[in-house]
């Protein structure tokens, strides 16, 4: 008999539905709707229903703020976003201001995929909670994996010229230097985001540098065009990526990079039990792949926290979320109190032909990502410089 039982919690989803990341956003909003049913009502200890209200921010920070205003007008107190760390930063800033200027009307921002470490370090906020693992954590896992790969000798960094890409390059160099001093960075490039039609010149450059490994945060066509060009030019290096799974990439990838493309993520297609059922159900329902696992984190965390706080009031819920520990699809997770960065298990997966054991094939490409390594939260955990300002 909880106070808030049966109450409906509205979550404003502020992400792109049009433009470059439209497809990614579409997939994610579907994920949110799907799990609102699964984890709403009886699905969570608090017994609250969840309702997702999508707003198209066209990947623009400014538009995100307008959307936020609209959401707040509709009395929505919970906001989620993930595509584009720029928009994320803007939202954190706006939420801070709003909560400061409108006491009693506080809003919580639950970040599902924006992975810029700054968001939980220099820019960290009491009202922001990140359920994805940030670039540095993923890089930790990636490098730990590469540590034992002796054939990784010469690394080339090729990234999109925007926050996410910059971060990947930055942390690759930092962490690698620590774990594999012998590895040598033979080159680095930043290319305009989704502007490059022809990656051949970059590939030629990589070949010339004699690199055997490429680390990239690229996604979508930027990733597939890159691999396509690599194949054509006969570049046989390994690719370590962040977003091989996001909508559109598998199709574009196809047979290219069979066995040579690795992805780091906090989930993968072949998680056992409940996850498999959901994966297939989602696939059937939307004819798409479920890859934004953080959605499950978000609902579960909210349920737990609301139960604990016996209320849906963001202020109380925020307090309850801090340091919250619970069990999720990738094992025990913790919302670290010091910076509101979720601590969780990470996986390394490899792109290869789907087989009996790993049968699920994203976008029916006949290929899949198979887990090749798994790292406990502590492995990938990175320190934070966050000085959290908590409302007194």
């Amino acid at each position, binding site marked *: 008999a909880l106070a808030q039982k049966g109450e409906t919690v509205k979550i404003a989803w502020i992400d792109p*539905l049009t433009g470059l990341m439209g497809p990614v956003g579409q997939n994610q909003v579907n994920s949110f709707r799907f799990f609102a049913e699964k984890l709403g009502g009886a699905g969570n200890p608090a017994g609250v229903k969840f309702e997702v209200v999508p707003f198209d921010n066209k990947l623009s920070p400014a538009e995100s703020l307008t959307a936020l205003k609209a959401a707040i*007008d509709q009395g929505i107190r919970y906001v989620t976003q993930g595509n584009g760390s720029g928009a994320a*930063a803007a939202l954190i800033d706006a939420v801070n*201001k709003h909560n400061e200027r409108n006491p009693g009307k506080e809003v919580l921002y639950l970040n599902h995929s924006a992975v810029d470490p700054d968001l939980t370090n220099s820019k960290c906020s009491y009202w922001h909670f990140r359920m994805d693992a940030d670039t540095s954590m993923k890089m930790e896992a990636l490098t730990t994996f590469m540590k034992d790969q002796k054939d990784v000798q010469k690394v080339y960094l090729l990234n999109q010229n925007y*926050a996410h890409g910059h971060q990947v390059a930055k942390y690759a160099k930092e962490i690698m230097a620590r774990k594999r001093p012998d590895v040598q960075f033979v080159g680095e490039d930043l290319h305009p985001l989704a502007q490059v039609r022809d990656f051949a010149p970059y590939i030629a450059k990589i070949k010339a540098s004699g690199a055997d490994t490429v680390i990239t945060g690229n996604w979508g066509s930027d990733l597939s065009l890159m691999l396509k060009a690599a194949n054509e030019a006969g570049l046989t290096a390994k690719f370590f990526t962040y977003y091989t799974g996001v909508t559109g990439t598998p199709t574009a990838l196809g047979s290219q990079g069979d066995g040579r493309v690795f992805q780091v993520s906090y989930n993968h297609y072949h998680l056992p039990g409940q996850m498999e059922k959901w994966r297939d159900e989602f696939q059937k329902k939307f004819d798409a792949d479920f890859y934004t696992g953080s959605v499950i984190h978000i609902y579960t965390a909210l349920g737990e926290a609301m139960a604990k706080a016996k209320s849906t009031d963001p202020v109380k819920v925020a307090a309850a979320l801090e340091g919250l520990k619970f069990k999720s699809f990738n094992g025990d997770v913790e919302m670290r109190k010091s910076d509101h960065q979720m601590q969780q298990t990470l996986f390394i997966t490899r792109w290869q032909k789907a087989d009996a054991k790993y049968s699920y094939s994203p976008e029916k490409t006949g290929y899949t990502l198979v887990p090749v390594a798994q790292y406990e939260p502590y492995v990938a955990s990175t320190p934070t410089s966050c000085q959290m300002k908590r409302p007194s």
Partner: protein
Amino acid sequence: MSTPSEFHFKPWNVGRWVIWGGFALVLLLAPTLWTSGFALTMLSQMGVAIIICLSYNMLLGQGGMLSFGHAVYAGLGAYLAIHTLNRVGAGTLGLPVSLVPLVGGLGGLAFAALLGYVSTKKAGTTFAMITMGVGELVWSMSLMLPEFFGGEGGVSSNRVVGQPVLGITFGPQVQLYYLIAVYCFVCTALMYAFTRTPLGRMLNAVRDNPERVEFIGYSTQRIRYIAFMIAGFFAGIGGGLGALNFEIVTAEVVGAHRSGAYLLFVFLGGATFFFGPILGAILMVIALVLLSELTTAWLLYLGLVFLFMVMYAPGGLASLIMMNLRVAAFGKLRRLWTAYLGLFGTGAAALVGIGAMVEMVYHRQLNAALGPDLRYLGATLNTESVNTWVGAVFVMLVGVGLFELTRREFARQWGDTQGEIEKEIKRREAL
């Protein structure tokens, strides 16, 4: 340029007082009609857009300069404004927040003086292409110079700084709205005044026949250049206000899309009349902010609206309005209103039908999984059942059919009235 002389409008010109008074009143009362925070931001954005679109029309409508890079000046103005605001916040600069937009204006002016010098050397297509190039340059620069442009995340700030002047902190949106409203009114007045000055008129002359201008003592290049700088100044003010409004400035503000939007909507509003861009600006905010909240098909609608507006109302909304005003002035509007009623009625029907189909198509593609039902204008459409489709098609066809009929009738009546008006005018001239 704000010499007081521009403010003594002809005292005896009642009409003008009414119009400007009305404009001020609208700006004043708008927030009491639309009170929600969202509405307020929309209104604020409209105010900003009005300034920028009017400034753009100085080039397009008055100077015949087709610029593909106007966002550059609004945007750079915005950046300078936000950096200034941060300075103020850091206490390294003592400037009341209400004056920050002026810094943006000066910024716009400065960059217009710099980049405009090369752009305005030429006119016509050459000018258009240069502005496009300059625009792309600045845009790509914005990604290469995160120090100034803040990279993808942009530069954010806090407008609640310094000690409040008579209780105004600009924290609450409504306070900022009124700041924007004041700027909007003053800038509009100034830009209108500009059209009444020697330079303003010569600008029209340059648009119509640059060659002859050279033979009555003026340097066309100089005229274009000065006009370009003035436009840059107002654009910058607009940008500065935008910066205050969002408290963040990201690279998109200098992007080609923005520039494109200014061009498109100024034209849609009507570049041939001074007030056209005002309508355009309002439409722009509605289309880009509101429409995308209402439907996923907004881009399609936008595209279609442009196709048809350009085809059937190349003068933009403003010219439509003015044509009807003319009819009214000759006291013949009463005769047309039945035709109009029919036009709107049938047109609405057609649109409802078309809209329903578009929405259903999109629903099937994007949200089929959420079940077949789609909320549309209060009704619930089942995108699976044949009946709904037949229904929609039926509504559309009937609508279109009737519309075509009424349109013909309307066209006839319209033609007649115009004819009579022509005669009337000829008669009056004859006297």
